[in-house]
């Protein structure tokens, strides 16, 4: 599913070069539930950005679903994000002006889906338990409900992999637990590959595999 080999990422901050990733290799199989852990500044976020095709590595190879991503143009990467990757962010990242349903419709708009957008968005919202909140704007929803909208949006184009960056970080423990259950159910029932990026051991407990990132390198360990 995901295979990266010897990935490095160098940032230039003024005159100083910062090496955020220093040769990372890892494999994630289809249907796996993996967490990427590490203290802040370890390169964890950079790894997540590279995995999510939001950023490109400086050197190294990245195969996503058998396709080499490392040499793609910006627009090709946009298409990969659109069709193959779903994002769930700590701060939900919904568009505040739009209703829940319109937020969920957006990835279909960029994918060029002409028909059935409203119906599919409604079905996705029902699947995450928000059938009665479709025409509410994010400000009218609780944190847990907003994260459900974000999950519905992430799944709408049937991605191969779902990347969740501290998905419970902004939630109270009860709705955090509900969101975790929702995500894990998606894996059980639909076999969606889940990658959590977190520093919360409670999340890591739920995953089959933990990848520790430290100083730009990875150390594998079983949960």
């Amino acid at each position, binding site marked *: 599913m995901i295979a990266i080999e010897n990935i490095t990422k160098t940032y230039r901050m003024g005159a100083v070069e910062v090496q955020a990733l220093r040769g990372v290799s890892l494999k994630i199989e289809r249907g796996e539930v993996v967490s990427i852990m590490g203290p802040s500044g370890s390169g964890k976020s950079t790894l997540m950005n590279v995995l999510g095709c939001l*950023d490109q590595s400086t050197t190294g190879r990245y195969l996503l679903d058998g396709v080499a991503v490392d040499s793609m143009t910006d627009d090709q990467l946009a*298409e990969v*994000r659109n069709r193959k990757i779903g994002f769930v962010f700590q701060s939900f990242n919904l568009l505040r002006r*739009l209703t829940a349903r319109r937020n969920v419709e957006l990835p279909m708009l960029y994918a*060029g889906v002409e028909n059935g957008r409203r119906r599919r968005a409604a079905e996705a919202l029902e699947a995450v338990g928000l059938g009665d909140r479709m025409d509410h704007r994010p400000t009218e929803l609780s944190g847990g409900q907003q994260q459900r909208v974000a999950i519905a949006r992430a799944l709408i184009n049937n991605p191969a992999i779902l990347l969740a960056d501290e998905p419970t970080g902004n939630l109270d423990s009860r709705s955090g637990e509900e969101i975790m259950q929702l995500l894990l159910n998606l894996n059980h029932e639909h076999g969606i590959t889940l990658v959590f990026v977190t520093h919360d051991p409670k999340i890591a407990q739920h995953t089959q595999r933990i990848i520790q990132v430290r100083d730009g390198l990875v150390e594998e360990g079983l949960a």
Partner: protein
Amino acid sequence: MNLTQGILSALEGVTANKLRSSLTMLGIVIGVAAVISLVSIGRGAQASVTAQIEQNGTNLIYVRPGSTQQGGVASASGSAGTLTQDDADALLSVAGVAAVAPELEGRGQVSYLGSNVNTRAIGVTPDYLTVRNMSLADGEFISEANVNARSSIVVLGSGVADDLFGGTAGAVGQKVRINSQPYTVVGVLASKGSTGLGSVDDQVLVPLSTAQARLIGGNRYRGASVLSSINVQAANSDEMDSVIEQLTLVLRERHDTIEGSDDFTVSNQQDLLATITEVTNTLTLFLGGIAAISLLVGGIGIMNIMLVSVTERTREIGIRKAIGARKRDILFQFLVESAVLSLVGGAIGNLVGWLISLAMGQVQFGSTSIKPTVDIDAVVLAVGFSLVVGLFFGIYPAMRAANLAPVEALRYE
């Protein structure tokens, strides 16, 4: 993303901040309204001046005295005083000339009972009526017999009749005094309105011989009374140029002058029209140009707001890119937003400009009123220009938005 979706999403963006969007549009509204109303007023002024000049008669050629040279100093044009009745008679024999109407112009104080008016007094011959395309409201015109007899009769312009008798009726048969001399009113001219160059309604006409002998007098040249101008009517408008050429040759021979030092000028209605059209065109262009500057300022307003909007919505752009928006999707979204702002502003501006034009049409400027004409080309130009302005000033902010890196845009707070 297709066009309809893009426009819908842009409309959402525009309506999300209504106060800001309407203030931005206001710049374009003012610009377009200014272009439309100023150009329409310019066009209206041109149309009314042209129409009034054409009223003076068609196929009309003016022969006026030129300036004289005395000791190398040129005097004012029209001061030569070398045109005489003999010249007028000679011009009548030129091929293609239908009629000749010599005139001598001066000022007269016209009084009747208690009221009096200072106006233009012109000595004319019977042909003057048809050559100058005039008609009578009442009574009759000066006859050949009147001219031969130096009769003390007068034909009043409608404005003068209004001032003295309160209307065109009731004046005929009354006795008025012009510069203290008694004259009998035999006719009143129908109103023609102002030409913008002095109204033909504000004048009185007397027989040419009477004017030369008593009322105006004037200089003498080679023993004959001078004329202030000779109106020549050509038989056919196609022959105007050749008639003018012939007239010029005849006068040169009679006055013994050579080209370049003529003591007369020959011009026609078309020359006057062409000059005035050129002047009003320049004026319209000038007014439109000033208005276009405000449109440009409105465009800069759009760019300013779009730049603010891009910065403010950096995170939104990041989110859109994360879920699959390509560069051209973002570019398109922001371009359509600025185009919507400028187009809606342009449409409202058209309406406002049209209303201003209508309002200006109700206002009287002295005795003249201008009928502003809103032409479709001005509308198309103003709306097209506002769209171009919107796209031009929108492209830079939109490029900025499209080129944002997704990671950095997402990190933006």
